[in-house]
């Protein structure tokens, strides 16, 4: 049951990801990205990480992407016009892409085994398990997060309200 669902949502994620890059209208790209994030949430779910899956939707698809859509609307972004073919992309980008692809293929071929799908049945990624880990074993990183958010809050206000 897990394998076919995985292939469906992984395929959806890849198609949507391609669409993020290939769409010329920014809003379409943003929508495709939302679809990528939601498919990823399902893949997390298939791995047993239930809590992470819903948080992925709430924080990424429901909060961060809202800001993206706002900004696209704010800047009144229209269709992109194709840029001049940049030398940078051709001389450096393509070789790097090839290296990256080779690396991914190497990892997948080298380490793939049939046991991956079974993880969902045994691994407990529910809210209780995450909470237990986060608030017993990883208290410091959690507290540091608050300072990170504090800095981000201040940064947002400073950037948006320069005159104050």
């Amino acid at each position, binding site marked *: 049951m897990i394998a076919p669902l995985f292939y469906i949502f992984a395929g959806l994620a890849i198609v949507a990801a391609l669409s993020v890059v290939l769409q010329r209208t920014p809003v379409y790209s943003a*929508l495709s990205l939302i679809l990528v994030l939601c498919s990823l949430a399902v893949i997390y779910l298939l791995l047993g990480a239930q809590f992470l899956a819903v948080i992925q*939707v709430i924080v990424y698809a429901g909060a961060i992407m*809202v800001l993206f859509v706002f900004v696209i609307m704010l800047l009144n972004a229209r269709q992109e016009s194709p840029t001049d073919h940049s030398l940078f992309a051709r001389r450096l980008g393509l070789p790097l892409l090839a290296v990256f692809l080779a690396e991914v293929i190497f990892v997948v071929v080298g380490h793939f085994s049939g046991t991956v799908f079974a993880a969902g049945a045994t691994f407990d990624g529910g809210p209780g398990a995450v909470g237990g880990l986060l608030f017993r074993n990883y208290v410091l990183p959690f507290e540091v997060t608050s300072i990170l958010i504090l800095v981000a809050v201040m940064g947002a206000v400073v950037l948006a309200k320069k005159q104050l």
Partner: protein
Amino acid sequence: MATHSDLPLLLLMTLAKVVVVLGVLLTAIAYIVWMERKVVAHIQSRWGPYLVGPHGLLQPLADALKFLFKEDIVPDEVDRPIFWLAPLLAFTLAFLSISVIPFGESITIAGHTIPLQITDLNVGLLFVLAVTSLGVYGVALAGWSSNSKFPLFGGLRSSAQLISYELSLGLAVVSVVLIAGSLSLREIVEQQRGLWNICKQPLGFLLYFTAAVAETNRTPFDLPEAEAELVGGYHTEYSSFKFAMFFMAEYANMVTVSCLATSLFFGGWLGPVFGPPLVRSLLPVLWFALKVLAFLFVYIWIRGTLPRFRYDQLMGFGWRVMLPVALLNVLGTSLIVAWRSV
């Protein structure tokens, strides 16, 4: 893990439940609209719908037919794919969260015990919040794709409103989770057998309900469709059944939010149970329905009574009153819970 033999059975049972729940929900929505028109009319000393059927009871059917046969105007220069996608998104998401709401205990048919809930997730509450958080896109995209000024401003304002009150909604719910120690709605209801959460969390409930009214774009927070300044808000350019989809989505959201309020604060399906087995398993559904109906009535009552906020008041209230009070409520609740469990 479900073995292969009971997977088809699970799917079949789910499909049956989904069809029943959606059927009930759609009928309920039709009659909530009727109830709203009647109640608001009587508050304003009018009759309300009276001509189609006795006391206008067939009015919802007439409305649906009218929507269906109306001309579907797609203005020039709209972004067509997104103009179609927005109402579909609003509709789908609004009808999705009902799947984790428990509306009764369980019923036994032919030896199978069927829980009266489409599914009980151990992140159920967060699932509702996740679906709600995606609801912003229906509104924002409708406003953007219309390529017209009123929808754009309406869509923008309402998305800003939705995200602002989503925070308070989340925080108000956290205090219930602190008491219940679970995100499964079934467990949260079960845990209220002794005392309903409303007694332990009166402030939490007030915060939740206020935020919920704002989340569903209802008076006094119905700025997105403030007809005096924004015409129809984000759905100004929509007509025919595309408009009806937004309309149904709004009422479906009202039902979901009321179901959630019932489950979180008013003991869900809990209530006095007696009689033969079948009545025993169906009475909880009745209690649940009555509680939800009471909430819907309050919604309508508020609409008939209160004036609308100004936009800066609305945003100011969300960020400067709701958010800090909700945060303090969480801290206060946690203090009491820690005190009592020592």
